[in-house]
């Protein structure tokens, strides 16, 4: 958790990057993770592949299928995390995915696995606050951050419910929709970030539909973090096992835009 709270610099927004574990293969994922760090990512979200990623758009759906078709198991995802932690002792790593693969062996099992493989936090797409006891308690008692999502449908009445027991950072899903398709208007992002920040001391990161360095810079001016996922996953799709250099260069272009945004 300390790794995570230290990852948000005071003078600029953090760059938070997502890839799907096991895409294009279990063997190739470590190098792509290294490319993210090398390019300047501050926080890594490692996607746990799932057969039914109902909150994801076409790019991440396809990545899930490529990974599972290649035979990725939960044990492989955890091994990838463990290897990452050994190579990058200071870079926070978050597992992101769906409830069923996370809870199938029990919440305690998963929380233990997070601890022993160097995972700092968890984002579970389909466990809202109302079902928090099916995973959140076990994670928190093991000091794994439970990162909550706020969305354009989160009104003032609901926000305190989401913030109760939230940790790490608050992830603002800027579009009511699925991953990777369109970006929200800058004005609505600014309004939402200001509203969220008035309700919490947690850093607020913004994601969904962020693709270009310019878009990242715009968000970096108002938010504490910028999340980029589908655009990276599309590079992995295009370059496969040769994705290291293109991913590193793309991340570097985002990092540099974010660094000079404020």
């Amino acid at each position, binding site marked *: 958790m300390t790794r995570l709270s230290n990852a948000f610099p005071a003078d600029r927004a953090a760059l938070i990057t997502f890839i799907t574990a096991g895409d294009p293969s279990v063997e190739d994922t470590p190098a792509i993770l290294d490319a993210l760090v090398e390019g300047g990512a501050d926080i890594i979200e490692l996607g746990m592949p799932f057969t*039914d990623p109902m*909150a994801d*758009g076409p790019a991440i759906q396809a990545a899930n299928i490529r990974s599972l078709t290649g035979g990725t198991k*939960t044990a492989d995802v955890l091994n990838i995390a463990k290897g990452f932690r050994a190579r990058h002792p200071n870079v926070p790593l978050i597992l992101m995915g769906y409830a069923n693969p996370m809870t199938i062996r029990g919440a305690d099992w998963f929380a233990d696995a997070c601890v022993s493989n160097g995972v700092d936090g968890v984002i579970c*797409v389909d466990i809202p606050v109302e079902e928090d006891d099916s995973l959140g308690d076990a994670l928190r008692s093991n000091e794994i951050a439970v990162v909550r999502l706020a969305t354009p*449908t989160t009104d003032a009445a609901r926000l305190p419910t989401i913030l109760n027991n939230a940790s790490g950072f608050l992830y603002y899903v800027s579009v009511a*929709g699925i991953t990777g398709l369109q970006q929200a208007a800058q004005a609505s992002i600014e309004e939402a970030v200001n509203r969220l920040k008035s309700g919490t001391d947690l850093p607020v990161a913004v994601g969904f539909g962020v693709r270009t360095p310019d878009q990242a810079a715009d968000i970096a001016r108002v938010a504490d973090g910028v999340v980029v996922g589908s655009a990276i996953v599309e590079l992995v799709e295009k370059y496969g096992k040769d994705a290291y250099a293109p991913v590193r260069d793309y991340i570097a272009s985002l990092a540099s835009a974010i660094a000079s945004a404020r």
Partner: protein
Amino acid sequence: MNDQANSFKNQPDERGHFGQFGGRYVAETLMPLILDLEKEYRAAQNDPEFAAQFDDLLTNYVGRPSPLYYAQGLTEELRKTAPEGKGAQIWFKRDELNHTGAHKINNCIGQILLAMRMGKTRIIAETGAGQHGVATATVCARFGLPCYIYMGSKDIERQAPNMFRMKLLGAQVIPVESGTGTLKDAMNEALRDWVANVDDTFYIIGTAAGPHPYPELVRDFQSVIGKEARAQMLDRINRLPDMLVAAIGGGSNAIGLFHPFLDDKDVEMLGVEAAGHGLDKEHAASLSGGKPGILHGNKTYLLQDEDGQIDEAHSISAGLDYPGIGPEHSWLKESGRVRYDSVTDTEALDAFQLLCRTEGIIPALEPSHAIAAVAREAVKMDQDKIILANLCGRGDKDIFTVAEALGTEI
């Protein structure tokens, strides 16, 4: 003395849980909408106007009450091979005679009334066999709302007549290629549509599954089946049946029949899942061959591997071809109140033909699974016992599938 605590009818709890099952496992974007839907449903439950509208449409548009029918031909046929004195009387609740040919319309009427109450102007739905798609397209045409139906590409192939029906009714059918191109993928895609169109869209879920309050409200709308059947039985022969039998995919026709009888202790209940090619091969029997997990908004029994990846289901019946089941059935299984069994593709095909020959009724492949189980149970029961099965759909839509399975060209 504590009747309420001992009742099997007091589920779910205020969080939408049926024991450990059910719940609201959805993306945060959908949570405010789900909470809103629950609020609106509670208001509708207390609104006599809503009930009056629902009842009027069921009577005059759907054609309810559906008949309760003593299947003498089938009863006598089964007695021929039964041991001496065995061969229970078989009765059918004839929900295949509803407008659109299946029980699905009961739920669609209820949900579209809710949608209009909430001011929603766009309807989406998923469909497997196409029966729920047709029923949804029907109510959308009736009330003039645009209708988008997600249907797996594999299901479109095997349910061409229903595909065309939906188009005639003015619905746009969106083929789903992702995953295995069946019901679960159609549901994923409908959820993706919903999350992107929360402001104006109502999702009419076709079975008693999904996030709370769907399992509860679909059950309540479908309970008209069991309420009618119970009253009809008492009226006709002044007694309750000894056993209820219904096929189960997601489980809406079964829960609709069972629920009003749950506290009738002497009424045994049997839910019949699709065993496909056999429980040791590809099948769709979540309760017999799966274990608890989380998918599509609820915790329930699922076909899945040790990592929680969802397995592909298989059944000759597109309507049963789903790797999950409504959460109340998972709870009824664990509580022991309902027994669950399964029937293979081959057994269902035999039962399909048996009913055609003995009763002059062409059943859908879904209730053919129930009929196969009825045949299996009836010969073990005394002749004065009564089995009531839900004939939840008619088989016109399935004749091409059946012809192909029987090696006949039409």
